[in-house]
């Protein structure tokens, strides 16, 4: 039925478009000068029909189930509902809708079957009503649009207004989503801080969040200091950057300035493939290849290396970031005008001197912007560390030790037994909010540098 509604909308919109266009062309054929081209008259009708009806269908689909459920519940025998708790009411409703869907288990009471029949009827009525509403409203709008076709009608301006309204709507979707995410995070974090003191979270050196959710569970006493966790994130990020920044920069410099075309045409696609490898694949690369290699190497020189090291997770994450940094640096270097290269070479600079004295300083703001974006990716990266970093939070900066990260902890806190009135679960939101703030700061910083870089030479 919903498909039918959309199909009718499509037909009405096209009809409106054709009618208006024809009408406008007829006026034009009479020799009158139109204010707007006939195409705009058509588009005016099209948009006037499509936008409101599309919104209507969406709202209908979102709201109708609530209304129907409310009607069904209201018509149930009074004594049943008054005794039921909210959880039981949910169950009854679920049972009724499964009966309505034809799945009858056991021997339901007759009033449930009645309710199910009513539900079926209401659902059907709702879809017919939707189709009827689409047809009536659509025809009315198309008719209205058709009435307005005249030589003086400013269809182009109307169309532009509607289109720019659409664009504004699309642009604000991102804003509202962000605000929604922040609001959800802040709300849950607020609940968390009503259970765990703010100072303990911010300055505590212990992170042992595995407290019992239900009575009788065997678990730790609980400690919620985020410092060891963020320290783990920072250690892994640092390792990743130590791997990624020099390699990425060198490869970009080589590809941009020194590589012959043939090498460039081979290496670039490989870098792009590297960028397309799913992080979960990097994750098992880290556990299966890198971590054992580091471990056996460490043992061979007499070092005590734990099985999950920050070094393994960080260096694999670094490999993941190489194409990112390399492509940013590549863009920054390519953006440097050729005249500067020639100017430098003509002064008798070698290519290396040209690179270090002119190109690199000119490109550095762009490169720094790329590195900072890479930092926020490293901080937010989840899959590799979930697979390859440890779970135990330790106050250590030794990369050969096992560390855990903010993202790993969020994942483990939300996996398995959860309950949203327990500090264990809510701690995930507090960590999420902190992570969000840290990456936001870095991104703002990065964007500023990138913007400054745009002004560097114009």
């Amino acid at each position: 039925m919903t498909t039918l509604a959309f199909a009718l909308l499509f037909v009405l919109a096209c009809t409106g478009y054709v009618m208006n266009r024809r009408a406008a062309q007829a006026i034009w054929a009479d020799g009158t000068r139109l204010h707007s081209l006939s195409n705009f008259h058509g588009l005016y009708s099209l948009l006037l029909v499509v936008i409101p009806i599309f919104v209507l269908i969406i709202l209908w689909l979102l709201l109708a189930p609530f209304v129907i459920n409310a009607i069904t519940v209201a018509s149930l025998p009074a004594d049943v509902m008054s005794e039921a708790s909210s959880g039981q009411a949910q169950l009854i409703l679920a049972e009724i809708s499964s009966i309505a869907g034809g799945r009858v288990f056991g021997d339901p009471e007759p009033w449930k079957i009645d309710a199910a029949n009513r539900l079926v009827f209401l659902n059907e009525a709702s879809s017919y009503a939707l189709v009827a509403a689409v047809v009536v409203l659509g025809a009315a709008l198309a008719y209205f649009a058709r009435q307005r076709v005249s030589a003086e009608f400013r269809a182009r301006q109307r169309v532009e207004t509607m289109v720019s309204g659409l664009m504004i709507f699309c642009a604000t979707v991102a804003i509202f989503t962000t605000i929604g995410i922040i609001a959800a995070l802040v709300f849950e974090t607020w609940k968390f801080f009503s259970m765990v003191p703010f100072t303990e979270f911010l300055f505590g050196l212990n992170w042992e969040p595995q407290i019992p959710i239900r009575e009788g569970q065997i678990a730790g006493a609980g400690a919620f200091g985020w410092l060891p966790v963020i320290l783990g994130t920072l250690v892994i990020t640092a390792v990743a950057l130590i791997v990624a920044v020099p390699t990425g920069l060198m490869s970009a410099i080589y590809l941009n300035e020194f590589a012959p075309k043939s090498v460039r045409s081979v290496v670039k696609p490989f870098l792009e493939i590297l960028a397309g490898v799913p992080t979960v694949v990097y994750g098992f690369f880290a556990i299966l290849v890198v971590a054992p290699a580091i471990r056996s190497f460490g043992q061979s020189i007499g070092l005590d290396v734990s099985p999950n090291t920050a070094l393994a997770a960080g260096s694999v994450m670094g490999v993941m970031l190489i194409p990112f940094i390399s492509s940013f640096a590549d863009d920054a270097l390519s953006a440097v005008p050729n005249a500067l290269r020639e100017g430098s070479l003509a002064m008798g600079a070698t290519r290396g001197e040209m690179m270090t004295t002119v190109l690199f300083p000119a490109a550095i703001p762009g490169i720094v912007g790329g590195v900072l974006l890479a930092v926020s990716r490293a901080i937010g990266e989840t899959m590799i560390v979930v697979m390859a970093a440890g779970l135990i939070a330790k106050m250590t900066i030794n990369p050969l030790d096992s560390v855990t990260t903010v993202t790993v902890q969020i994942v483990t806190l939300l996996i398995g037994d959860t309950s949203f009135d327990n500090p264990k679960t809510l701690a995930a939101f507090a960590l999420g909010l902190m992570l969000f703030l840290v990456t936001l700061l870095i991104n703002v910083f990065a964007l500023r540098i990138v913007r400054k870089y745009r002004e560097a030479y114009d």
Partner: protein
Amino acid sequence: MYDADQNRTERKVGQKDIKITARDVQVYYGTNHAIKDVSVEIEDKTVTAFIGPSGCGKSTFLRCLNRMNDTIDICRVEGNIAIDGEDIYDRRVDPVQLRAKVGMVFQKPNPFPKSIYDNVAYGPKIHGLAKNKSELDDIVERALRRGAIWDEVKDRLQAPGTGLSGGQQQRLCIARAVATEPEVLLMDEPCSALDPIATGQVEELIDELKQNYSVVIVTHSMQQAARVSQKTAFFHLGNLVEYDDTEKIFTNPQDSRTESYITGRIG
């Protein structure tokens, strides 16, 4: 067509030494034959002007003289170019040292996004011309004075060079080029972004430079060629049509194409 050999036999006593000799130079951009059979001798302590219609290969030929064409992948140079008798396209010649000796000013000003001071100090620094800071300061000041821009920038040497006006930027680039004391200075339409006053100053500078160096200047202004140069070469469609004393080119050209160009009928 102009023939360098013939010119040499006619050389009179008192004429200046030859600084650059080019023989049968061909330049190709891929399949585009941009310079055809050009042979020319450029004298020391002289200003030589390259004139000719747009796209005739003046810049291309100029860029052969300091091997800037090496930086263009598709560009191929054939023939023989020697400076002070040494073939600059020889394998043993380091283009980096060559370019330190043959300075260049580009058509479009291209200051580095560094301070005015660092722009001018760039060459002396990479070639190690100054022993200490005060020596470097002197070099920078002298170069800026010769670039006729000292008075305008002496109070803001640490300001970025890209913040200057187009004409100031060009004079900064000239100062940058002369700071390394090159033996040959190649200038590709150095005055196309300058007002008449700055143009006059640059021309004065060129006049002064020719005391010590040989200067090659590409220009679209006949008046400028006539004012600053002693020798003029006229290029047309990749050929060197005529090369002679400036006076002679402008008063009594041998080739009909030269005549129609300088009188404004072609180009």
